[in-house]
Each structure stands twice: as C-alpha cells, then as structure tokens.
C-alpha cells in the first residue's frame, strides 16, 4: 500500500503488533498442532512423542486412509463436483438476477430484495425437514429425479439434489453481492453500449460482466470454499457412503462408540484443507475486493 499512510512512528506500531500477536497465537498453535499430530503417534503439547511418551514417534500411519480407505478419493471427487457445480450455479443465477435487480425496475423488485435477505437469515437447519419433502417429491419426477449419470439426479439421496439445495441456500448472498457490484457500474457505459448497437443481453455479457470480473471471482471463490466445506446438507441428504463428501466423512471418524484417533481426524482435516489453503494463497487479492465492491477501471 501507500508508504505515506503510516503517519505514526515505528515505535507506535509495536504495541498493536504485540496485542495482535498474542490474540493470534492460540489459532496459530492450533494449526501447528494439527500439522504435527498428523505425522506423530501421539503428541505432548506441540512435541511428537511415541507410545512410551519419549520424543520421536514420527509416522505416516495417520495418512494411511489415503491408500487403505480408497473411498476417500471418490469422496474427494464428489466434493469437487459439488463445489464446482455449486459455484457455476450460483454465479449464473446471481449474476443474471443481480443485474435485473440492479438495473431493471419491475413490480415487486423491492419486496423481492427484502425477502431474499430474510430468507438468507433462516438457519438452514430449520429448513431440513421441508427440504426433505421437496427432494422426495423431485425424486418422483422422471429422469430429473434420479436418472442422471454420476449426479444421480436432483432428488433425495443424490449429489445433484444436494447441489440444487446448496445453490438455493447460497443464492441470497450471491444475488445481493452481485447487485452491489452492478450498482457500481455507471449507467452511461451501458447507454453508450446500447447506442453503439448492443442488445440488452449483449450489454450484460460483453460490457458489464467484464467490468465486475473481480466481483465474480470473489463470489466464485467464496462459493467454492463453502461448497467444499459443506457439511449439513450433504450429511443430511446423502445416506450412501460412496455418494457422500469429505466433511461428513470427517464427522464419521468422530464416532460416539469407538475410541477416536484424533491424529487421523487431523490428517483428514488437513487433507480437506489443502485445496482451500492453496485457493486462498492465489486469490486473496480478489477476496479483498468483495468488501471493496465494484470495478477498479479506467473510469
């Protein structure tokens, strides 16, 4: 950022740094512990120890699920498909709906915006039973219900159904965000494009969408991550193990009856976290933009 912004002297920056560091330490230590424990038989604090409590005991046993429990790869694929299709669905619908809500005045627009917000405020757990009945009904629809390869369909106990429900739950936020980005585009640019010979749809696709690319990217990343980490909906509506995703699998390791191997749980958690971390590293810039809003362009 701008060097001139730091008006205060260096000494004045020390105190906030200390406070922030102290507050951050527990979180950082937690992450370090996860990392260490996945490679250790047991841990003593942050130190890996063997079964006798002596330092050492490094092992890859906790990661053995990768080759001993091959369903993990199927679940990873499922999770990836869920996150990807969720992202595409949310982007498609919310960029079109956001544009309409930002630019076109039609009866019911205000009410629609208001109710969308209220719907977003509903915790999805309260909707589970209702969603269950909707999915059961969709299951009865020919082809769409359960006749689609890989996704199964859009009914109960299919990956497609989970994607459908997740898209619906993510949409309110997506629509509002996209509307915000569209609001920041000047009317004149659209008018110029209309006069230059564009249809309304072409204005949207060729002029406006490129201008809110940072917004689209940010929404895509957020949606992808939320799909990747999704637990409640897949856990509730996918009952067959090979149809499920990573988060419910992780939950399955924390069984109530058998002793829990926290090192294995940590390893699976870390495995699930890897794509998210990689994502964050490459996309921080766009993520920050979602709070800044709008395009940074020449105009």
């Amino acid at each position: 950022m701008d060097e001139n912004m730091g008006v205060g002297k260096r000494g004045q920056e020390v105190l906030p740094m200390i406070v922030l560091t102290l507050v951050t330490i527990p979180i950082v230590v937690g992450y370090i512990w996860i990392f260490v424990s996945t490679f250790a038989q047991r841990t003593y604090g942050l130190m890996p120890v063997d079964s006798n409590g002596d330092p050492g005991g490094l092992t890859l046993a906790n990661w053995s699920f990768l080759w001993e429990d091959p369903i993990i790869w199927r679940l990873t694929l499922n999770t990836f498909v869920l996150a990807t299709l969720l992202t595409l669905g949310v982007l498609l619908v919310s960029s079109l709906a956001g544009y309409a809500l930002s630019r076109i005045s039609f009866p019911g627009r205000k009410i629609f915006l208001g109710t969308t917000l209220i719907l977003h405020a509903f915790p999805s757990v309260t909707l589970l039973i209702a969603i269950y009945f909707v999915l059961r009904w969709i299951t009865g629809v020919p082809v769409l219900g359960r006749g689609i390869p890989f996704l199964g369909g859009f009914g109960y106990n299919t990956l497609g159904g989970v994607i459908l429900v997740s898209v619906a739950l993510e949409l309110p936020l997506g629509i509002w965000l996209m509307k915000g980005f569209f609001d920041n585009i000047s009317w004149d640019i659209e008018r110029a494009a209309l006069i230059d010979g564009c249809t309304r749809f072409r204005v949207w696709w060729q002029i406006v969408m490129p201008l809110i690319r940072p917004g689209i990217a940010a929404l895509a990343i957020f949606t992808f991550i939320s799909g990747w980490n999704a637990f409640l909906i897949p856990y509730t509506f996918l009952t067959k193990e090979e149809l499920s995703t990573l988060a419910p699998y992780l939950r399955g390791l924390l069984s109530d009856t058998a002793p829990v191997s926290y090192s294995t749980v940590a390893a699976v958690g870390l495995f699930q976290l890897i794509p998210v971390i990689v994502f964050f590293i490459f996309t921080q810039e766009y993520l920050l933009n979602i709070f800044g809003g709008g395009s940074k362009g020449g105009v």
Partner: protein
Amino acid sequence: MIVTFDNLTKRFGDVVAVDTVNMQVQDGEFVALLGPSGCGKTTTLLMAAGIYSPSGGEIRFGDKIMNNVPPKDRNIGMVFQSYALYPHMTVYENIVFPMKLKKVPKSTMDERARQVADKMGIGDLLDRKPGQLSGGQQQRVALGRALVKQPDVLLFDEPLSNLDARLRYTMRAEIKRLQFELGITSIYVTHDQVEAMTMADRIAVMQDSQLQAFDTPAELYDRPRTLFIGGFVGNPPMNFMDVEVTGQSGNFQARRPNFNIPVAAQRGRKASDRGEVVLGIRPEDVSICAPDEAGCVAGEVYVVEPMGRDDLVGFLVADTHLYALTNAGSGLKIGDQVALRFNPDKAQFFDPKTARSLLWE
C-alpha cells in the same frame, strides 16, 4: 436529418420530467439544450437517444416516428460527460466496437477507425486502455467512437463538464468546427450558458421541465422572453431590481427610492403605469459617469474583481447589489462613491408576477 419533438413528455411516476416540449432541429443544425440541473434537458436527450421512451408526444427523425425504435436502430452517436468508454477494451477496440456490432467488413472497419483516430489526434494511442489516458484524450476517443458510425444525429451530454477550463476552451472550438465540417445534426446538452452561446446555432432554454425559448444566441441575449432567460443567458449575469416606470410624451423614467434613471421611450412605454416591474440591465450596460451628470445615480463600490481584460465591479445602488463591467485599471477601491449611468436603450422589463418580458411579447 431533421429531428422533431412534438409535445414530447416524460413522466417518472408522478414527476413530470419533460413537459410537452415542441421543437424542430433543422438538418445539420447545432442545437444546445440549456438549463440548470434537473430541468429535464438530459431526459429529453435520452429520449432522443432511445434510452427512455416518451410518456407522451412524438420524436421524429425526418418523417419517421422514433418513439419505439431501440437505440441501436437509430443510427445516432452519443458523447457522455463521463466519457463512458469501455475500460476493458483498448482505444482501438472502443472505436471499432460500434462497427463490429454492425458487421462492417474488417478492412473498412480498420480504415475508418484509423481515419477517425487521425482526425481526433489520437492515432498514437490506439493500443492504450482508457485508464491510461488523460480526460481530454478520453473525450476525443469518445467523440471518435460516436463519429465512426457516421451517425445521422450526434447527441452530446455535457461532454466538456469534466475537463479543466483550458481544455474545455479548445475542445469547444474543435467540436464546433468538426460539427460544421461534417454537417451532422447535433443536440448538445449543457448547463453552461457560455458553451451554449459559443457553439450553438440555436439554443433551447429549459426550466422546470418546460421549454422556455428556442432561439438564436443573439436573440436570447438581446431579447430575453422571460426573467429566467435574462438571468441565465449571459455572463456575468444580468442585474435585476424592482422599479416603477413613469412618464409621458416620450420621456420615461424608472424609479425607486434614491434611484431615478431615464429609459428609452419605446421600452418605457410598455413598462409604464403597471406599478412595480423588474428592471434588468446587463453589467456591460452599466458604466461610470462624471458626478452630477444628468441621468446618473449614486452608488458605492462594494467589491472589485479584476478579470484581466476588464474589471467586474460590484456596487451598492439604492439598497441593491448590482454589477458593472468597467475597463481594467479603473482604479476603483472598495468604499468609493461613484455615479453610474444605465444605458437607456438596453434596459429590460419583466412582469414580476408572470416573470415574462414586457418588451418582447
């Protein structure tokens, strides 16, 4: 292309933004739509562009009714205050964009784009993005993009308002010259009366959604039909004061307490015996005269604003502030007592109730 507005009206809900505007822009004419912000001039322009559809009345290009023709089928070019360039495209892509949409053959497209770019003096900027250009350069690109389609009508929406004063000056002349050379019918929206006066063949003055006058700049300046036009057209603006006009047999005076000036008989006759009327006089028609000269009134210098070529001097005359343009270096100081002469042949009179001119009805 003759552009006709016939009882053109635009309502937004209960608000009437443009109220039964009637005017006809001749082929090749340069018309300025002048008025303060919120007067409906931009709305009128956007209806001509097809962005807004009229709530009533008609827009015709030639004989063709355009009310429901979408913007892309009107063959118009438009230049915006914000330039409205496409930030993600290069200057070249911006300029060829309208032709691309019209599916002009590539070679023609390229040739025309370069021609226009050279004409606008932006030939060496074609590979840049709009964000890398100065305001003046961006406005040239916007002009180029509007011209490259060889439009029947050019629309300008305050195109110079975002430029600095000096650039505005040169662009003003350039646009006027360009319009003259190309002979494209043009409608130019501005709130700056200097722009309207200097560029337009005719000026349409709008106020409160209505067309107040549609006339040549000289006519508006010399024969303002309403108080609003008198005050809005001309810089520095016209002075106003309440007076009573009396007299008979070709000898008329405008009076108020401590104030008595002679007025030309032709004008005085129309304003006399009506009780209080509004006297309007332009700053260049007020001059300093010798003390005790006949027909002069006493005043006190309130402020002196040197403008280089001349000084704009504010006076306090008969409890009213008014301005006069005097030669530079008049030596006047704040507080000086002077005598002022009002050119009797230039006084304007308005009815205070209807705000209409008493002279030019």
